[in-house]
């Protein structure tokens, strides 16, 4: 793969992720708006959101001023091509930060200084997953406010009577939605992992946010749980931005991971309505072959 082509591809992938809301989420927001009473706070809030999304698209400007902590996932063969993609992502991040498309979102926790270019220790966060077939790259930007609302439960949890079964899982997820109220920029989208350990739970639950809102979980019981969560969360009355209304969640995507017999974690990655994510497949030269 060619370095300069790769850099152009990563620049285009990140720029689009930052400035164009994915179609499935726009459709879900439009549907949510139709459910609310015209003139209500919830209706007006969703209207402002939909107008703001169009403005960002028209002017090629960021959907949200919080352009998140960039997460990149590279699926490729474990060869030197990986390093080239990694380098291209870092360079694209620096360029887009200079241009004011990505906000300066990396602060050194010891000096409290903003690094100014969105790079720092372990930043940007780039995960590598060995895979066959053409190289695929996914980029996700989600707001820091929503990241703060993510939660991990170690079952059993007595306060909400969550035992070590799927009903316990349901209780934890609904509790997380209630705790978040509007502070994660509802209507939110949840990525959930049942099982795993502390670290894999967060990694895998966040990965679920790449799934299209319209897809159907191939595991029937998880599909049923996802639907139950969305329906019940929308009965909480939290509504857009927590100001009351019917739309509290746009979607919920759940996966599982094997667990240690002693541990039963439920990890909920809360994401804002402005969940920005795209994936591309690269061709052999490093150009974008197709958008996934």
């Amino acid at each position, binding site marked *: 793969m060619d370095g300069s082509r790769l850099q152009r591809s990563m620049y285009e992938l990140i720029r689009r992720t930052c400035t164009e809301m994915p179609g499935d989420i726009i459709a879900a927001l439009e549907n949510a708006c139709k459910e609310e009473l015209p003139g209500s706070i919830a209706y007006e809030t969703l209207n402002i959101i939909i107008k703001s999304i169009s403005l960002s698209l028209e002017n090629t400007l960021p959907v949200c001023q919080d352009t998140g902590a960039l997460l990149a996932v590279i699926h490729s063969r474990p060869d030197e091509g990986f390093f080239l993609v990694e380098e291209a992502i870092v360079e694209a991040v620096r360029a887009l930060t200079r241009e004011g498309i990505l906000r300066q979102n990396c602060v050194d926790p010891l000096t409290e200084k*903003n690094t100014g270019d969105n790079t720092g220790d372990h930043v940007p966060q780039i995960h590598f997953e060995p895979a066959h077939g053409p190289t695929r790259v996914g980029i996700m930007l989600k707001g820091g406010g929503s990241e703060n609302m993510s939660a991990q439960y170690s079952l059993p949890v007595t306060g909400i009577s969550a035992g070590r079964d799927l009903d316990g899982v349901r209780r934890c997820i609904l509790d997380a939605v209630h705790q978040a109220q509007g502070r994660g920029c509802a209507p939110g989208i949840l990525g959930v992992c049942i099982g795993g350990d502390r670290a894999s739970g967060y990694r895998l639950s966040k990965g679920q946010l790449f799934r299209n809102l319209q897809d159907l979980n191939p595991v029937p019981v998880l599909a049923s749980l996802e639907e139950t969560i969305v329906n019940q969360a929308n009965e909480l009355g939290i509504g857009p*931005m927590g100001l009351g209304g019917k739309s509290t969640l746009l979607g919920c995507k759940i996966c599982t991971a094997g667990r240690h017999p002693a541990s039963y974690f439920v990890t909920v990655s809360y994401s804002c309505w402005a969940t920005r994510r795209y994936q591309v497949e690269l061709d052999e030269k490093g150009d974008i072959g197709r958008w996934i």
Partner: protein
Amino acid sequence: MDMRRIISPIAPGVIRDLAVGDMVSLSGRIVTGRDRVHRYLASGGTPPIDLSGLVIYHCGPLVVEEGRHWKITAAGPTTSMREEPYEADVIERFRPGAIMGKGGMGENTLSALKDHGCVYLHVTGGAAQYIADRIVRVESVYLKDFGQPESMWVLTVQDLPALVTMDSHGGSLHGSIRRESLNRLNTLLDRRFDEGRRT
């Protein structure tokens, strides 16, 4: 919805007249201030400009800087609750006219709003372009050491729509939504998830 036009700095009489649920259209001078600015002010720091009557906006804008000229490219609100440990103190000492952000604030801030005559204005999170469109001028910037998003930006806004969600009489929409949603949560927890049957 009916919109009430208000100008920042906001006159004390106007503040006391606002109630939860009022839609306002805000114009005038506002300042941004988020985590670093609040920590600075609450730990004895002097505000670089007089804050009395002004709107303090919880926002870390995206700004393109060209010499002494700045262009705001995105400017939605950040989560206000993080400033809860500092806000009551900031309100008492500097007497801003309104706090603006998203998600609402807690009991200490609510008391300070009542004691010192201030309101909380809610704007739509993530609607960064819609709001940036209403910022007509960047006047100046202070406390730049805090980094671009955390500096204090002095802005002029025109017809920015916001909702009063906490007023100077003890009313809070956030408090009532939290209580009602907790009741509904408890009802939902009483149901059981039955595998295979969709509810």
